[in-house]
């Protein structure tokens, strides 16, 4: 049976970076996220994403990998969307207010607020009542839907 999940941008990027290039903590996390990629391929997971996540993934790919690979990332994600493996969501008015409420209720830390993409991502997981796969520990205090792979 296909499980619906929302995935944080970081999870996607972790599948793109070889373990040898990662720091120690992320080296341990990488094998955990690869199962989501396998599951996506096998149809075990249907990934739900706010549209801004695609922009984030492309942006990080461009920043660290160059234009050619980043444009290829964009095309692959587009291919997955066309294949129905990823479902994208607009930031409509209801989602905007839900994300705004999250940003009002929660700070990321004492020194920083919840970012807009974070709030939109968490809001989507709550709206769809699905798990949000992330390695951001502060997400756990924001939403019960956040789940850190272990």
């Amino acid at each position: 049976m296909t499980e619906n999940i929302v995935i944080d941008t970081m999870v996607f990027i972790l599948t793109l970076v070889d373990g040898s290039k990662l720091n120690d903590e992320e080296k341990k996390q990488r094998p955990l996220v690869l199962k989501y990629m396998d599951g996506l391929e096998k149809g075990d997971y249907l990934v739900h994403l706010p549209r801004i996540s695609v922009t984030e993934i492309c942006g990080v790919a461009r920043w660290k990998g160059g234009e050619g690979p980043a444009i290829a990332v964009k095309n692959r994600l587009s291919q997955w969307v066309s294949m129905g493996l990823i479902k994208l969501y607009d930031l409509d008015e209801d989602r905007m207010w839900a994300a705004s409420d999250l940003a009002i209720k929660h700070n990321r830390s004492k020194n920083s607020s919840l970012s807009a993409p974070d709030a939109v991502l968490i809001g989507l997981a709550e709206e769809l009542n699905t798990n949000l796969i992330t390695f951001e520990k502060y997400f756990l205090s924001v939403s019960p839907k956040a789940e850190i792979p272990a």
Partner: protein
Amino acid sequence: MTMALARPLTYAVSAPIASPRKGKGKIPAEALRYFSEGVALGQLGKHQEELAAYDEALRHREDFPEAWYNRGVTLGQLAKHQEALAAFDEALRYREDFPEAWYNRGVTLGQLGKHQEALAAFDEALGYRKDYPEAWYNRGVALWELGKHQEALLAFDEALGYRKDYPEAWCNKGVALGLMGKHQEALAAFGRAYEFRDRLADGGANLYRLWALDSLAHALDGLLNQNIRAFEEGGLKYIDIFEKSQRDGPDFVGVVEDTLAQLKARLKKRKEQKAFEELEVFIRLMKIKDPFEGWKALGKEISKVWPKGHSVRKAVREMRR
């Protein structure tokens, strides 16, 4: 920046005439017999004997423009351009309203590098016969050679107005548009040429080369002008052309693959070379059809340049600032 990478296809001669025009004085039977014999020999590829037959026909009737004309065509096929030119001139001496002779006079002059005179000959041909796509096409080639690219484009369009299934004209239209930086339109024109590629003398090898080069130029222009859509469009079109070549045969695959090296050799500026490297990576990655294998290949490529020990979390957070 506009990439000007290609020259158009060149002048094209026309076939001999099978029978003389009627109603302009009776041609003696002997002359007609030799003329027909010449045509038949030409169809068998026996060009020396063909020439001898036309000479016999002309011995029986000197003012026989079609025999002079066919003699010229055959001499042209044998690359005897000066003699061919003299034969077309004889044909026109006896019959001025002979568009095919003017046309082939133009082709021959073009082959001799006399493009301005060739242009005048094509204009004469078109004066007698406006619906003459081959003359329009070759007029376009002459204009191109004279550096009048915009006018050449109009001439190719005229040719296509009279004959849609004209791959050389589509191809040269593509070259002209590409030179003007109108790559989207150029790629569409090459696409039309591809529909009729079976009619091209080389089976489409040159078309593949020109088409692939223009797709790469489109992509490179896109990246250099920060037009990502154009980069994608050009890169993906190159892959599409590559896949078509795979279906058409290994020779064509080689032609398409070679265009990458041809383009690379022309790039002198560091900025262009860097853009080309990005394009090569993109093409390599997008050639992989399986989306998951493609993602893994992407991972390998990004990992090559990802700074060692740089946190993914930090990168994403910086992106979200």
